[in-house]
Structures are given as structure tokens and as C-alpha cells.
């Protein structure tokens, strides 16, 4: 009786296959045997996530400890968080992070969508491929290289930007040492680097839209713009919603590599973000616990934002990440 209750049953219902009762355990093993090539393909990804994303969660307890090189660590409760929140620059750093991340969400996030929509309208195959190759290329450059390129480009004395400004009778501006412009440099360089590559997902979503919808729209007399607005955009809304929610999860990660490479003495206070602060205080001075506390704070905020975005998206579009 007990054995019988433990054995939940599955009923296969496929065409002429006879109905059979299979135990859950046996079913799982059967599934593994049947689909093993797919499980094998998934394995590296799963192992990667387990090692690099799940095992470290346990070590986040460092945020509540005083780390000792020679164990054991000493439990200090919320002391590291108190130190973090009482730091004279932390709130400035937090504000910078929110501003830069907000600017990126508003100004960077829509660009790949627009790029994908525009690319989809290019009818000539070779032209589209050339454009795609050109706009994907910056994605493969490191921020060190990109920073070098933009420092040279934006130099008011030797850079192209300075020469253009002089050419039209304007006084050249050093955008990298101007606290009013540096955040826009971050936004622009982010667009330059990632807009092309990030448009790939949207382009894939656009390609998967049923072409009959376009045919129907055309029969109804829709022009190109109307087809984009009434067919293409609604067709990629689930992709947009999913990526928006995932982006919200990374909201407080305003890109360490980008900022650290474009940071200098003048703009440091304007673009000093949580990640650069954690890097400077945590790694260079060995305050690992403080750095972990800041990282954990960031992760919790990210998790909350994901949940809120998911719920809002579910309500507005009916789509979420799960």
C-alpha cells in the first residue's frame, strides 16, 4: 500500500503506443537515456552555473564575517554593512550608480531594438550583412581598447572631436574631464559597443514572426511603418520584456570595466559606482568583507528589481521571465 502510494504514475498517450505505468524514478532515468545527447550538451552550462554562480552564494556569508586568511573567520554580524553605509562617499557612489544605470536603461536599452527594426527593413542581403558585420565588431573590443580610442578621439587638442569643433567655430570640450558630459560619454560608448551585438536577439525574434501576419497586414493596406508598429513590435514584446527584466537584475552593475577605463581624477566623483568602489576598497586594500557586503547589497537590490519588473511586466504584457 505504502509502496503503491510512493509510486506516482505517468500515463503515456501517444498514438498507438500502449498505455503504461512508469515510476517517476524510472521515468527520469528513461528520460536521461532517451535524451542523453541533449543533457550532455546542457551539462557544461549547468556545471558552469553551479561552480561560478551557485557555490559562491555560500561564500557571501563573508559579508557578515571578519575574513581571516588562516581560518576560522570571525562572525561580526552587520558590522560590515554599518561600515559601508556610514562611509562618507557611499551615498554619492550609490547615487552615481543609480543615475548611470537609469541613463543606460532609458537611452541604451531601446537602441538595439531600433537597430534590429531598421536592419529588418534593409532589403538588400549583402548590404544588410555588411552593416551587421560593421556594427557587431565593437562588441569584440575590450574596454581598454575602446577607452584608448575615445580618449584619442575626444582629445580637444589632437582628437577628431576637437578638430570638428574648431572646424565649425566652437571651442573644443574635453568630454572626459567635464563632469557634465562624462556620463553621456558612458552612455554613448555603451551604445557604440553593444547596440549592434545586442540587436541580434531582437533580430532573431523578428525573423521568427509568422510572415502571414505581414501578408495579412499588407492586404489590409498597411504601409511599412504600420507593419512595424502593428506586427513587428508586438511580435517581439515578449523578448523585449524578458530582456528588460534581466537588465533590471543587473541595474546596479553599471559596468566596472567601462567605468574604470574611462575614470580619471576629474570625473571620478561623478562616475564612481558601487563596482569601482568595491574594487578599490575591497581588492586593493584587502577589505574583502566590506566588498562582499557591498556586493550582497547590490545583489539583493537586483533581485528585488527583477521581481518587481517581472510582476509589472506580467500585469502589463502578460509576459514575464517565468
Amino acid at each position, binding site marked *: 500500500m505504502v509502496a503503491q502510494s510512493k509510486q506516482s504514475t505517468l500515463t503515456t498517450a501517444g498514438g498507438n503506443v500502449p498505455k503504461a505505468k512508469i515510476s517517476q524514478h524510472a521515468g527520469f532515468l528513461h528520460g536521461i537515456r532517451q535524451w542523453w545527447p541533449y543533457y550532455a550538451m546542457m551539462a557544461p552550462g549547468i556545471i558552469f552555473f553551479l561552480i561560478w554562480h551557485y557555490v559562491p552564494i555560500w561564500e557571501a556569508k563573508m559579508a557578515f564575517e571578519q575574513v581571516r586568511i588562516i581560518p576560522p573567520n570571525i562572525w561580526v554580524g552587520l558590522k560590515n554593512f554599518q561600515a559601508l553605509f556610514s562611509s562618507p562617499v557611499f551615498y554619492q557612489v550609490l547615487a552615481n550608480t543609480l543615475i548611470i544605470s537609469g541613463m543606460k536603461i532609458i537611452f541604451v536599452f531601446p537602441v538595439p531594438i531600433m537597430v534590429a527594426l531598421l536592419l529588418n527593413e534593409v532589403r538588400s542581403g549583402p548590404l544588410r550583412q555588411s552593416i551587421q558585420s560593421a556594427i557587431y565588431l565593437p562588441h569584440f573590443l575590450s574596454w581598454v581598447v575602446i577607452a584608448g580610442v575615445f580618449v584619442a578621439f575626444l582629445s580637444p587638442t589632437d582628437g577628431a572631436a576637437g578638430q570638428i569643433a574648431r572646424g565649425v567655430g566652437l571651442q573644443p570640450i574635453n568630454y572626459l574631464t567635464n563632469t557634465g558630459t562624462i556620463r553621456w560619454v558612458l552612455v554613448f560608448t555603451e551604445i557604440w559597443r553593444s547596440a549592434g551585438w545586442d540587436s541580434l536577439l531582437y533580430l532573431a525574434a523578428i525573423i521568427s514572426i509568422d510572415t502571414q501576419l505581414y501578408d495579412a497586414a499588407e492586404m489590409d493596406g498597411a504601409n511599412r511603418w504600420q507593419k512595424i508598429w502593428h506586427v513587428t513590435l508586438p511580435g517581439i514584446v515578449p523578448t523585449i520584456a524578458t530582456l528588460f527584466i534581466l537588465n533590471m537584475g543587473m541595474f546596479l552593475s553599471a559596468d566596472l570595466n567601462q567605468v574604470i577605463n574611462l575614470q580619471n581624477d576629474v570625473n571620478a566623483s561623478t562616475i564612481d559606482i558601487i563596482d569601482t568602489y568595491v574594487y578599490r576598497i575591497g581588492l586593493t586594500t584587502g577589505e574583502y568583507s*566590506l566588498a562582499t557586503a557591498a556586493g550582497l547589497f547590490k545583489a539583493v537590490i537586483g533581485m528585488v528589481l527583477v521581481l518587481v519588473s517581472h510582476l509589472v511586466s506580467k500585469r502589463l504584457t502578460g509576459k514575464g521571465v517565468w
Partner: protein
Amino acid sequence: MLRRTLMLSTAAMALVGALAVPAFAQSVPIRIVSKDLLTTNPEDVKEIEAIEAGLKAAGTDVDLQILDLPGSGYADALSVQLLSGDIPDIIYFQGGDQKMAEQGILEDLNPWIEKYPNLKAALWPHNVERLKNYPYLLYIYPPRAPQPVIRQDWLDKLGMAPPTTVEEYEALFKAIHDGDLDGDGTPGNTLGLTGYGNTAELDSIFNQAFGVTATWMKDASGAWVNERVTDAEKAKIEYYARLASEGLFDKEYVTNTFDVKEDKFYTGKAGVIFGSSPEVIDIYGGKMNQAHPGETIKLALLPLPKGPGGRGLAAVDVSKESRGFAVSSVSEHKEEAVKVLDFMASKAGQDIDRMGFEGEQYTKDASGAVTFTDKISTWYARFFNAANWTAPTQQLSPTAQAALDTIKAGFVADNAFVWPSDYAADVDATEQVYRSWVAKFITGEAKIDQWDQFVSEYNAAGGTKLAEYARTVLK
């Protein structure tokens, strides 16, 4: 017969093996991690083998094992390595050592230095002071004191004597700027002076000139204040800002990297740059000639300027070494690890470390006279630059030697001290505020009459708290 032969052979091999095992076992394994010391670099490996041989000849049999860490991001990689609990016997730090010292991972080197005469004799005066305050790091090098250099032919073309006052420096920068020394037909497009990152290089010669005598100075009421908020500092920054506003000092110093700074010098876009050490000044000389093939360009060292506050090199921070070698306190072979460092401070160790190898970096004639080859230009000391070692043949150019002589003659100890880790966030915040405001003053984003605003911000960011602590430390 065969059986007996086999048995005898086996017994003989076992005997040889048994004798060999203790022989191998005598080598004490010493694990060393250092920046740019890699098993993939044949020159590093060769030097390590030479050190092992030198130590063995001196009666210490060690097996030096290099731990490879990437040169780029070395400090971060080392922190992660140590945090994982893997602690080598000899560790080269480039920051991040204080936390390790606080946890008792690093050996107090002072008792060892007393015991080992080579180490003691090799120390520079600032090393002695730093070891008194922080006995965990050893970095036997002359203090880093950047000094300015100019092309000798440009100085000759200008017909000016080397500047000896801050006013004469300004006049020299103006003459460089207004002249057409680079010969491109456009006067006014050459900077008098360029730099990179921050103003630390300039401070090296202008601090004393403007009366910034130490990190902590007494105000009118006799209380200790950080020099960064003093009138002397204000006068110095005002001078820098004036140079920049007149196009004499590179406003883009903030975004310059060291190679951009050098490039501006070699290509004639800037007339004067600072060399961070005598060796670096010689590297500049070599690169300048590479950039101008067919010409022989010599560099001239500019003297220290006299100003309203006096003359001299900036006071040297003796609170601690900012980088250097440490010995692990949990090492099972501390004695041998210290012996390795002592050997590197000895004449035999310095000969290897500073000159490389006979037949490669130098040659010797029948009389024993040493001649350096071209390969010496790419050789560098992996360990120390001992104060008591002299090269058998002059290694430095006269300009670089003059820079070294200035450093030797101009050592003044600073009164900065090591901050407890509880003050790390305040030190970081005040540093950010200071660097940011200085750059704003110089680039023109802020006017010098906003100085009081800077001081208020600096104090609010932790300056007041730090000064209060400093008053408990300084007498």
C-alpha cells in the same frame, strides 16, 4: 649467474637510490611569487638558477620555485591567491599587504635584518625608517623622486640657463611654448610640460618650493592639519593652474597615460617630462634617440627650483614601503627564505640581479674590466638595488647619475603614518575629493577662489576625522 648479476644490479641501484634521496632532500623548497617573475621567461629562470647556484656555493641549498601570476592586475591576483590560503614563502606585494600583516601572516623582518649583514648594509636611509614603522616589507631601492628632463639641444637652442626658481621654470615653459623647437613651422603648439594621471610628479620638485614640507603641517594655532588644505598647497595648485591656463602645462594630463606622456615628449609636442627614477631617465634617452634616427639627442636634468617655501625634493613617505618583498610568518622555511633575500642584497646576488650574465648583458676582458652590451638595456633587477653596490663600469648616463645624486643628497623624511584599516573609507574619500578638485582647478573647471569650498568638502569627506586621529599620533 644471470640471477646473481640481476640481484647485484638491483642491490646496487637500490643503494645508489638510497644515497641519492637524502642528497635531493637537502634542497629546501622555497616558493616565491613576484611581479613579472615567470617560469615562461627564460631570463627569469636563468637568474633563479644562478641564485640557487650562488646560495649553494655559500652553503644554502634551496630549490626556488616560481609561482606564476599575471603581471597585469598582479596585486588583485595575489590577493585572491593569498585569500585562498595558498601562502608562498617569499611574497612580493604591490599593495594589499597591510591586511595580511594585520592578520599576522607576514614576518617581522627587523630581527632577521639584524642577523643578516648583507641586508642591513644594503638598506637606503628611507628603508631603515620605513622598517621601523612597518617591519613587514623590504624594498631596497632609492626613493622614487621624479625629476624633470629636457632635450639638451632644445635648451641650447633657447639659449637659456637651466631654471633654478619657480619663476625661471615658468619662463622656460613659456619659451618652449612660444618657440618652434619642433620645427613644424607653427610656434605655440608645443607644451612646456606634460604629465599623466595626477600631479604627483610635479609635486616631487614643487612641494618644497611652495612650502609643502610634509604631509602633516602645523596651522597658525599650532594644530596638525593635512598639507592638502594649507595655504602653501593652495599657492602650488594656483601655480599649476596658471601654467595650464597659459598652455604651458598639459591640461590633458588627467587623461594621459604614461605612454601618451612619453610620446608627446619624443614627438616634440612637449618640452619637459618627469622621469620617475634615474633608470627611467635613461630609458627616455634611449627612446628619444630611437624616435629620431640619425640624431644623437642627449637629455639634460633640470635642477630643483627655489620658491617662496625653499628648495628640495618632496619629503619621502617613510610610514611603510608601498611595495616590496615579505616573508610568510607561516612558512616552514623562514630562515632559508631570508637567506635568499640576504643573498640578493650581497655583492654576488647584486652582480647577478643588476648586471645579468657574462657573455650576454656584459663581457669581461683579460684584465677583468666589464663592458656592458646592448642587451643590458632590456635587463632589469628582479629583487633589489642595494645602496652599497656599485657597478664595475658606469651603468647610468651622466644625466641619470645626476638624478641619483640629487635623490641621495635630498632625502627628507615625511611624517605620514600608516592608517588603521577602520579609516580606509575616509582615506579613500578624501583622496578622491583632493584629486578631483586639483584636476578641476588645473583644467579650469573650478577657479582657485573656490578653494574654501574644496576645503569644506575635503573635511566633510573625512578630512576632519583624519586630522583628529593624526593629532593623537603626531607630537
